[in-house]
């Protein structure tokens, strides 16, 4: 269970405080996972008593007079608040039961933020990814597998609109062939070629925490020859970043290049100790 209490002596209007908390929970405490289990008791509470606010200064509040409803004070406070919640949330991941690794998962998508977040959550929840990290194994295949079954992606090839079109075309051709109409003469190799391709826009890298060079594992759907020694070096460190790009900077289909959304999620590895702790946690 996650419990958190945050207090500030700045003065904030009650509705604004509630809105700020809801919004910034998404990118902080709702962006962490240790074991993928959502508790019955999770609570994050926040209090703002204005005890440090100079006499006569009004509580910070959203109001339409300001640019996107925020005064300069509120905009600055929001930045402080957002960073504070993220850093407090990361402390929880640092203490994951039996954890030996602190893993940042950063996913970039030109489809949507939701796509990026779903993929990040899927990787963070994968027991196979987490045990590979504990074993210091650069098993990018498991990361790709977790990307591939992320909710909302598996069915629609949302990662690759081209594949969707090809998939539909192949189904249509087969239907026509059954009816003895249309081209219908697709031989196996033709259909095979036009079947949904392995996603050619997905790249996966390990980013070491010491600032040294990125280790590319998969580039635009093509596996790299992985330097095992380098991978082991990187996985020896306590902190690791897994960078997933679901875009390659080119337009999807014949549209314009779309803006990239990024989701960041924090998790840890799964160790023998996690099983021991939870096997012993007597009810």
């Amino acid at each position, binding site marked *: *269970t*996650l*419990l*958190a*209490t*945050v*207090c*500030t*002596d*700045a003065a904030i*209007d*009650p509705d604004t*405080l*509630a809105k700020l*908390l*809801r919004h910034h*929970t998404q990118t902080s*405490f*709702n962006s*962490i*996972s*240790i*074991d*993928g*289990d*959502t*508790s*019955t*008791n*999770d*609570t*994050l*509470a*926040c*209090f*703002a*008593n204005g005890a*440090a606010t*100079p006499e006569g200064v009004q*509580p910070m509040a959203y109001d339409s007079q300001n640019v996107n409803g925020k005064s*300069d*004070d509120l905009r*600055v*406070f929001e930045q402080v*608040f957002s960073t*504070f*919640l993220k*850093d*407090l949330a990361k402390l*929880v991941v*640092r*203490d*994951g*039961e039996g954890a030996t690794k602190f893993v940042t998962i950063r996913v970039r998508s030109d489809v949507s933020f939701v796509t990026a977040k779903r993929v990040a959550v899927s990787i963070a*929840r994968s027991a196979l990814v987490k045990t590979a990290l504990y074993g210091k194994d650069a098993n990018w295949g498991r990361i790709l597998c977790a990307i591939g079954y992320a909710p909302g992606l598996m069915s629609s090839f949302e990662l690759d609109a081209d594949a969707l079109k090809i998939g539909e075309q192949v189904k249509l051709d087969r239907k026509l062939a059954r009816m003895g109409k249309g081209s219908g003469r697709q031989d196996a190799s033709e259909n095979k070629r036009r079947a949904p391709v392995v996603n050619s826009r997905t790249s996966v890298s390990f980013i070491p925490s010491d600032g040294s060079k990125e280790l590319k594992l998969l580039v635009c759907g093509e596996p790299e020859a992985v330097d095992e020694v380098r991978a082991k070096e990187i996985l020896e460190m306590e902190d690791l970043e897994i960078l997933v790009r679901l875009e390659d900077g080119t337009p999807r289909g014949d549209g314009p290049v779309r803006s990239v959304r990024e989701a960041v999620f924090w998790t840890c590895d799964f160790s023998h100790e*996690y099983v021991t702790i*939870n096997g012993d*946690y*007597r*009810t």
Partner: protein
Amino acid sequence: AERSIPAAKQKYVPTSGTYPKGFLAGSAFAGVKASNTKYDDLALIVSEVPCPGAAVFTRNMFRAAPVKVSGDILRLQQNKNIRGVVINSGCANAVTGKLGLEHAEAMSRATDKLFGADDASLPETLVMSTGVIGQRLPIDRITSAIPKLHASLGSTHEHWLGAAQAICTTDTFPKLMSRTFTLPSHPETTYSIAGMTKGAGMIHPNMA
């Protein structure tokens, strides 16, 4: 008693802090979980003057009694006039039916009374619980320890650290952070923000 902290985690535990004015923190021993005979397991964070408060809660279908009671208090008070939060570790008061709700309300009311509230007053103190699911709270032990909890309140780093320690369950270190900041309209004024958290297992929050 102080729980020992693994050497590798010491770096995450602050040795000092900058805590927001007008807030007090405290901790006390109630013996919520039978196997705990020495570590504080009650914590209290309050504002000397009731103030705006907000919270987000789990969306798990079987949300616990303290989650329901705290949500009701915030709705009743429209996020205003909130005193703070009383927290127990050692028992989650979850899947405990009507009696669980009564126990959570009793924790809140026992705390309010120590700040002068009477039975007619609206509740001002939120409630949080963490620990084993499916067990009832030893509510008498908790309510009889709350005056001690109230007496333990203070505004030093040790008070805040004690509260952060008291809410731990399988955590290996207390999670406490504090920062100062200024705002453009009055750069001469220094504000503070502080927070404590717990969690080491059953962690995949999806709060709203």
